[in-house]
């Protein structure tokens, strides 16, 4: 068994928000007190997690338009997805022969699992987290057309806007950015009103709405 690795998040770096730890307990970090939390990693090494966090932050940056991948905990989300059934292609058809060069309209035909694609892709981004943002962007432009980048981009969007049970969208920052309220039991009184104006009910997560813990797919066999 490999040595357990952690991703250390400081409150200042993530803007003082809620963080979900491995056991799904939440801590609210305060930027003023400059607290930090060590999130145990399930798949990445610490070095890999820092690269993923840096890359995701360039894809969905924290900027004047609002918080981004860093505050949403996208790196933690991706780590869990890769550790779970999706990361090892548990539900993909993986019988041979593989036609790696098949036309795009047949979908991904390769042999490599998401875990393998990430592990390989991250080698080319070694040290990314220590570069200036402009240099990070340059590096990412170079790999923009790769399968790894398209996966990273897709996973970043997922980590921004998934339910917080998956480790991303911490404190529903992603949903608040776009005005999505999360699961709601009823929109009956509002669906045919508010025409032409933004109707923005307070966001609530699945756990808040159902009142109990829901087991996400990455925790299953």
């Amino acid at each position, binding site marked *: 068994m490999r040595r357990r690795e952690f991703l250390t998040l400081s409150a200042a770096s993530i803007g003082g928000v809620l963080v979900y730890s491995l056991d799904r307990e939440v801590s609210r970090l305060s930027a003023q007190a400059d607290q930090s939390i060590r999130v145990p990693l399930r798949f990445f090494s610490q070095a890999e997690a820092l690269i993923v966090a840096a890359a995701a932050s360039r894809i969905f940056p924290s900027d004047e338009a609002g918080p981004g991948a860093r505050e949403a905990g996208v790196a933690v989300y991706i780590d869990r997805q890769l550790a779970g059934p999706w990361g090892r292609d548990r539900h993909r058809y993986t019988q041979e022969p593989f036609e790696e060069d098949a036309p795009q309209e047949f979908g991904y035909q390769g042999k490599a699992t998401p875990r393998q694609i990430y592990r390989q892709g991250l080698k080319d981004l070694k040290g990314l987290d220590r570069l200036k943002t402009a240099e990070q962007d340059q590096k990412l432009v170079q790999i923009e057309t790769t399968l790894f980048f398209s996966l990273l981009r897709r996973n970043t969007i997922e980590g921004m806007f998934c339910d917080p049970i998956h480790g991303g969208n911490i404190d529903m920052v992603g949903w608040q950015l776009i005005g999505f309220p999360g699961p709601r039991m*009823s929109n009956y009184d509002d669906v045919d009103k508010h025409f032409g104006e933004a109707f923005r009910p307070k966001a609530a997560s699945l756990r808040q709405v159902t009142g109990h813990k829901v087991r996400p797919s990455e925790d299953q066999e």
Partner: protein
Amino acid sequence: MKTLPSVDVVIVGGGWTGLLMAKELGSRTALSVVVLERGGPRKTEEYGDGMDELDYSVRLRMMQDVSQETVTLRHDTTQQALPLRQHGSFLPGSGVGGAGEHWSAVCPRNLPDCFELFSRSIEKYGANRLPEDHAIQDWGVTYDELEPYYMRAELLMGVSGMAGNIHGKQIEGGNIFEGWRSAEYPTPPTKVPYFSAMFAESTKSLGYHPYPVPAATTSRAYTNPDGVSRAGCTYCGYCETFGCMIGAKSQPTNTLLPVIAKRKNVSIRTGAWVRRVVRDASENRGRARGVTYIDANGQEVFQPAELIFLASWTLNNTRLLLLSGIGEAYDPATGKGTVGRNLTHQVVFSAATAFFEKPLNRFMGSGASGIMLSDLDGDLFDHGKLSFLRGGTLSARSARSLPISECGVVPKSVKATWGSAWKKATLHYYDRTGRIGFSGEHLAYKGNYMDLDPVYKDHFGDPLLRLTLDWRENERKMAEYVIAKAVEIAREMGANEVTGFPGLQSYDATRYQSSHVQGGVIMGSSPDCSVLNPYLQHWHVANLFVLGASSFPQNASANPTPTILALTYRAADAIVKRYLKNPAALA
């Protein structure tokens, strides 16, 4: 292999058609009925926990596990077929209720002339106007014959909508182009969200005849003729790829299971993976003896039965017949054989993606709530100068507006695909984007068919089903025509920017269209060109019936659920009233 005691009826597949047949035979007769479902059990109570886009819409938790079995695809017979290694253009369900659990519940009837497509088209346009390699056929049943069964299906589900034609009398505001109805919809139309309301207004001003989408999502509390009560829709927006948390969306589990659960003569075995239909030994080839399956413990079982129904997801019915060697496999080179022919996939795409200045609040709605129009459907518009036949419907619904799948849908003027500029556009447009969807007919062609793949196997070692499928000029021209119309409508609605669908190239297995893949075990008026008679009974094996959209000779623009239910009701009637008294060919 373990042989179980014989039962009267075995039904393969616990989705809409299998459970409807189980309900009908189970409550109208004393026959012992066993349903074999290869997926797991399901309960409505589970669905509240399922309002999670990632697990249900992205990771597709309710779908068939393609790691065990998928299909292969090629565009024509010269290509090497490749397995669809992940879900894409269609989503087969699994588990009790099947795809009927995760559908969006759009529930229109077929146009009357769909059932006589060949005769009507020849009559109007002559044989020369039909595409060269078409395989269009009549169904062997007419709309008039099917109407009472459509009504029963709608009453079963509590379909909401507004009639446009009751006994031939046109009603403004409903679909004036629809086939005659014997009665109004069981529940009134669902509420209309903002984007759909704009679509209604603009299409009306352009001279179209918009109407509320018929929805198998009840608009208010409803009790069906079986005494099953369901709540009205609350427009939570979690319909397609989800199960309904309150049971407002009609699903086999909330509509049929409550009746079946009370019948001691019906049982459902989950985890039962049927591999073969077993035919009688030589002296009586016109009869099937039962089915073999692998049970939940991995043991091989033979279940003898007097009457056998295949009611698995549409493509799997074809595969079971081919694996069982029942009937002759279709050969496109000679035109001989019938099993596997007439593979079609409803022509569905977002015809126009419209970007607005005002927010749409599109998290509110249901998979089927909205407005559609049929002015461009079937033969309802003048095809005289056009280079294609038939058409489809345009609609504005609130379906598919969840953030993971929709964030990043931005106008063409936004060039960035990541980074600050892209993020800004993404945040701005997320709730300002609406889609005008198209659902069109797909004609049958001699070259679009299914057989067994020579290379790829399922987890038991059985060959996968191979689809040979591609678009033809008729679909491409039809697409071009409706895209232009949809873009015009989007501009009339006041969109700042509009992206038209780029058009159909070769069949793309990665773009979700609809799960309405059809054909393979088609019905018809002669055993020379169909597998089933118009009662869904096998022409040569009288105690074998095959239910579902695998029986459709070609693809209508309308979504198939009400039609498969109507055909199943009709078959059940014929079985109860005639077949059980004289177990022989019904036609």
